[in-house]
């Protein structure tokens, strides 16, 4: 047995230092207050120990003291809250230019796919110095993607995409754990994150066998399932065109506006009646049980690709389903005010 007693996990991402600083602050705070209480107790035990010539002095309390020791913890906890919230907000919002990798968790393994189509199992290769956004979904129960060296973690749910992101800073191999209990071999659902220099990563990608990029695989599926019959960019199409759709606000038939993100696309494939694009009929059949989770991811990637293919500004697009940039400010307001709206009885009427 190797004798090692580390106190901190390695710091291998841009946020690790920040989390550790916050953690250290909390450790110091805890130590301070625990010692304060402990020392006071020891001091009182000795100073006021029971002895024949000493009698307890009866004190009822002190409102001033009560206020002080309510206010001080309250103040400190508000500092902790704000600090923690800022960090959390940072960790919840991946940068726009992040490298996007998809992962599927299943009992009891991790499957990842890079945009170029390279697949790997229980290992994830990433380059240093570049934000990486991992979009995750589970095929069965709830899992959890946890890389201690990056100080990030997210549950991986079976019914919707979850995201996490990190910017690796140090090369090396790091643990990847499933940290949400997921059945028999939970502790075997581990893997490795391999952080490489960008050029090594590029080389690794090139050496990988890929049947084609994720988008091209998605395109193939798109053709196979006959999606193109309806989703065409011409005026007479029965389904909304998917050109320039990804990441843009879409107006629905009940006048709600949603952003066409991963989860929207997934829902539209599996549960097409949930959100109907304004001006179209709800005729699409469900693909529940037909497309695999990986297939869904590839199709999503393809649709995303359709938005990036040409550099033409989106505002000039002729896709009627996608709203123009000029409309966006009002839409953002709508989105803000939309909190209560799904409750409306007309909510999802076709």
């Amino acid at each position, binding site marked *: 047995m190797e004798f090692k007693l580390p106190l901190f996990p390695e710091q291998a991402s841009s946020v690790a230092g920040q989390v550790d600083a916050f953690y250290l602050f909390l450790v110091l705070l805890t130590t301070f207050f625990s010692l304060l209480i402990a020392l006071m107790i020891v001091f009182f035990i000795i100073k006021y120990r029971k002895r024949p010539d000493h009698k307890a002095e009866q004190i009822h309390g002190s409102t001033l003291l009560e206020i002080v020791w309510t206010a001080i913890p309250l103040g400190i906890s508000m500092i902790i809250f704000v600090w923690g919230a800022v960090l959390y907000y940072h960790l919840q919002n991946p940068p726009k230019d992040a490298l996007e990798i998809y992962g599927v968790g299943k009992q009891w393994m991790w499957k990842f796919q890079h945009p170029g189509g390279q697949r790997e199992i229980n290992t994830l290769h990433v380059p240093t110095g570049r934000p990486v956004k991992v979009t995750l979904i589970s095929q069965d129960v709830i899992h959890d993607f946890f890389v201690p060296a990056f100080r990030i973690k997210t549950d991986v749910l079976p019914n919707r995409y979850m995201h996490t992101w990190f910017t690796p800073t140090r090369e090396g191999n790091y643990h990847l754990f499933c940290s949400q209990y997921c059945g028999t071999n939970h502790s075997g659902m581990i893997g490795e994150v391999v952080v490489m220099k960008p050029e090594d990563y590029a080389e690794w990608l090139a050496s990988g066998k890929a049947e084609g990029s994720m988008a091209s695989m998605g395109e193939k599926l798109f053709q196979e399932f006959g999606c193109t019959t309806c989703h065409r960019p011409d005026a007479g199409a029965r389904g909304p065109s998917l050109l320039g759709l990804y990441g843009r*606000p879409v107006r629905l038939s009940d006048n709600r506006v949603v952003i066409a993100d991963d*989860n*929207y696309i997934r829902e539209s494939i599996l549960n097409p009646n949930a959100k109907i694009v304004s001006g179209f009929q709800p005729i699409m059949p469900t693909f529940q049980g037909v497309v695999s989770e990986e297939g869904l991811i590839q199709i999503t990637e393809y649709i995303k690709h359709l938005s990036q293919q040409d550099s033409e500004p989106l505002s000039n697009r002729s896709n009627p389903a996608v709203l123009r940039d000029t409309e966006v400010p009002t839409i*953002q307001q709508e989105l803000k005010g939309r*909190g*209560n709206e799904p409750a409306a009885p*007309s909510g999802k009427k076709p």
Partner: protein
Amino acid sequence: MSQNSHPTPLLYFVIVMCLFVGTVVTYKAATIDMGIWNPIVALAIACTKAVLVVLFFMHVRYSDKLTKVTVVAGFFWLMILITLSLSDYIGRGFQVAP
């Protein structure tokens, strides 16, 4: 505590008539398209009926403060459960904003 102040059969009769009317109104209101107001009207009538039952049939109107506090506490806790769990689902809508 409530011996001498119980309501009379006549009052019970008035209440039960109100409840019957309330039921008919709920039913009729549901057949009119009022948009977002349909569930609100239905729940408002249901709440009114429930309050009538609690106050008169269950004698809360004639009971001590403790009973009244108990009833209010129950309602309060139910609201905690409903609003806080519902707020998460509604709150997820905010996340799609760009």
